[in-house]
């Protein structure tokens, strides 16, 4: 009994399966009050599944949970919140067309209601308080949520999760959706809550981040509990190894220090103004890995969209091979340009479609230029590339909405590898991807480079840029603020100087 009381939360033998997929297999975890617990694992290892069970979003098949020593069996999210468990989800969790205040108190309006009648003023007042509590003052409760940026919406979700002063706060893969400032805010809030004696379950693929912010750590692999580590036992290589279950070399970036880049320009932007891009001039050479970096809001994601023809330049032009302008996305694809969006679920994938359909989509015309397309060829193409990318699924007929985030990303990459585009624009290709897969993706990028393909790598992670690029272009306020070559010997500090 005494043993149990020491723990705030305890889960025993949690099982959950989706058809033939066993997402969680007798998973055990105990969380103490006043700790930040990291939860790490490969893509599809069951982190989101577990945390959503705790938050009452879905039900487990078997196993027991205890909160404060009492059996805990949430009937739904509201019940979970009432028990003091709240969660920030991996996907977007706000509802458009209603106000910020309404989003914060969504499902909890009864607080401000008498007989179903809502006191909107009071709700706005409380929402302002909730936002203040997380030190956000630029968001007004009356604003429509649609007026906010993606990042600000995540902040609204934080306010929502923290308003009820939860005993357990679950944060599933949220940092990748936040800017540096947002991250700092999140870390600050996490510390604050820990110091108040609350528990935090923190999910991330960034091992540095985990090691830095967490007090202890649980590793999951294929739905199985693998290990618990305390802060003093943290070691990046060891964690990686536990994660993927085999030895992994210390660095997985490329190790050469720069090679001669071809002079041939395959894609360029000339004085382009579009979206958040201001007067951008940029050249991508054949066989080059060009990294694009900067702070969030610097416009780097729009660079990808402009070069791919998704965003039409207001002034200036985007040229392929220095002659033809890029007219539209479909033109770009036809002319050998591929694009992986940062916003995977909304823009890169058809969720309610099979893996095969997704992979084959850009290549349909290549399979048979005219007339009927053979089903066999499609299947071959899909299987070849999903195997190459090690997509974790029973077959290529599996629908993408049942895949974990990382596996979805692999499908997106497989799609473009299958198409065999000569120019690849990769916007945060490893976002939310586990270390093992990350290494595989980096290898692939290198391989593409060796095949003479040109890669534009847009990334928020400086390490990744430094590790992979032949050349890095940094942006500030939509314009180029600095350029570095690989052979100049790059460091984060050098880059950051040009970013701010």
């Amino acid at each position, binding site marked *: 009994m005494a043993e149990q009381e020491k723990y705030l939360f305890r889960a025993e033998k949690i099982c959950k399966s989706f058809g033939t997929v066993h997402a969680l297999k007798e998973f055990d975890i105990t969380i103490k009050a006043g700790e930040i617990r990291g939860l790490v694992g490969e893509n599809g290892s069951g982190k989101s599944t577990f945390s959503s069970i705790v938050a*009452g*979003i879905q039900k487990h098949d078997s196993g027991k949970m205890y909160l404060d020593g009492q059996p805990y069996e949430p009937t*739904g*999210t*509201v*019940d979970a*919140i009432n028990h003091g468990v709240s969660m920030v*989800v991996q996907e*977007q*969790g*706000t*509802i*458009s*067309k*209603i106000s910020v205040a*309404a989003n914060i108190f*969504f*499902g909890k*309006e*009864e607080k401000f*209601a008498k007989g*179903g*009648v*809502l006191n*909107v003023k009071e709700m706005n007042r409380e929402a302002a308080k909730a936002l203040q509590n997380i030190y956000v003052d630029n968001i007004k409760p009356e604003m429509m949520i649609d007026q906010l940026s993606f990042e600000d919406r995540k902040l609204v979700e934080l306010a929502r999760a923290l308003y009820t002063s939860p005993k357990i706060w679950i944060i599933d893969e949220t940092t990748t959706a936040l800017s540096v400032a947002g991250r700092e805010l999140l870390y600050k809030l996490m510390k604050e809550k820990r110091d108040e004696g609350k528990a935090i379950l923190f999910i991330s693929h960034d091992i540095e981040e985990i090691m830095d912010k967490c007090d202890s750590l649980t590793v999951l692999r294929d739905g199985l509990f693998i290990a618990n580590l305390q802060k003093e036992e943290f070691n990046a290589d060891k964690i990686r190894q536990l994660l993927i279950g085999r030895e992994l070399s210390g660095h997985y970036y490329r190790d050469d220090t720069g090679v001669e880049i071809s002079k041939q320009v395959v894609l360029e932007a000339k*004085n382009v*103004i579009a979206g958040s891009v201001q*007067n951008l001039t940029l050249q991508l050479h054949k066989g080059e890995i060009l990294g694009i970096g900067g702070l969030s809001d610097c416009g780097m994601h729009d660079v990808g969209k402009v070069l791919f023809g998704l965003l039409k330049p*207001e*002034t*200036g032009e985007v040229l392929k091979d220095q002659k033809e302008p890029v007219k539209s996305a479909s033109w770009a694809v036809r002319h050998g340009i591929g694009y992986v969006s940062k916003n995977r679920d909304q823009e890169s994938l058809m969720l309610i479609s099979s893996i095969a359909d997704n992979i084959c989509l850009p290549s349909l015309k290549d399979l048979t230029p005219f007339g009927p397309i053979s089903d066999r060829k499609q299947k071959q193409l899909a299987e070849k590339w999903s195997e190459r990318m090690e997509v974790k699924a029973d077959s290529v007929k599996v629908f993408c909405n049942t895949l974990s985030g990382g596996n979805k990303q692999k499908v997106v990459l497989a799609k473009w590898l299958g198409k065999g585009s000569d120019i690849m624009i990769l916007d945060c290709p490893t976002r939310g991807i586990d270390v093992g897969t990350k290494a595989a993706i980096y290898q692939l990028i290198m391989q593409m480079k060796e095949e003479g393909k040109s890669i534009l790598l847009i990334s928020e992670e400086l390490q990744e840029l430094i590790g992979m690029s032949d050349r890095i272009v940094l942006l500030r306020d939509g314009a180029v603020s600095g350029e570095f070559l690989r052979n100049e010997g790059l460091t984060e500090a050098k880059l950051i100087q040009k970013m701010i």
Partner: protein
Amino acid sequence: MKRFLINILKVIMLPVIVYLIFLVICFERFSNWNCIYTIFIQTIIPTITAYAIAYGNICGVFDFTIGSRLVISGVIGGLLAAQYGFAGMILGAIISAIVVGIITGVLNWWLKIPSLVLTMGLAMVFEIIGSKLAGHYGFVQIDNKYAIFGSSPNIVIIFLLSAVLFYFVFNHTVFSFHMRAVGSNEAVAKNSGIKTDLVKCKSFVYGSVFIGIAAILTLSQSGSVGAQTSLGSVTIMFKPLISVLLALVLQRICDLTIGIFIAQFTLNIIFIGLIAVGLPDTFQNVVLGFFLLVVMILFENSGRIEELKEKRAARQKAMSAS
């Protein structure tokens, strides 16, 4: 406050402009008060019907049954008026509207099939129920002494009360927040612990109150309610539906409650205008369709027009800079 007034003015411009156009075309017919008054009175029933439609629309469900439910409610109200007078008519219409609404809502909940399919099937069934209830003559008539709600000021008072009720429910209840959320992102709403199915079910039921009111007014204004078959009842809801769609366009600058009324009012000006101009009534549909299309195109592309302006500005800036 100033902004609010400007917005109201903007919205009122819509009917005013349309009215002025007709005034110019035929001054002598359009320049009397009776004309405007008639347009106003005619706007009431479709506006209240549109309020009922708005519930489903906001929730993201599609409802083909509105017309057939209106008929059933009117027929039962009419039948009970003969038996129990006013009480029979009012209670009969409202309660039957709610009961049929509950049936629709609950089936939508249980069967978990797209609402368009469900309501299309149900409309076919409800139509027959309505016509069976209407009996031998295919329509139900009420005694003129029960028809007092059909003329002003009663109809205006009922309209104002309905509008206030609608405004209140749509802006000040927990339910309305849930409804909008379900319409905007059902998956997230569900994960936030909202019983989305229940919300949708409720939207059918609450909307039914307005169907009941519309049925009573129809009964009172036309003196009778006739049954419809072969999906004929769907045509009853098309014009109110158009006003809801227009009102959603106007929503950015004006509340739905007023927006629906203004939109319906504008449509009615067109209706009477065409008759007054002496154009064959077939033109009504042409003008209506055209009007709907143009408004929708303007609305959907308003962002683009601004974008274009910005682009031009940007280009000019770049030109002058270089």
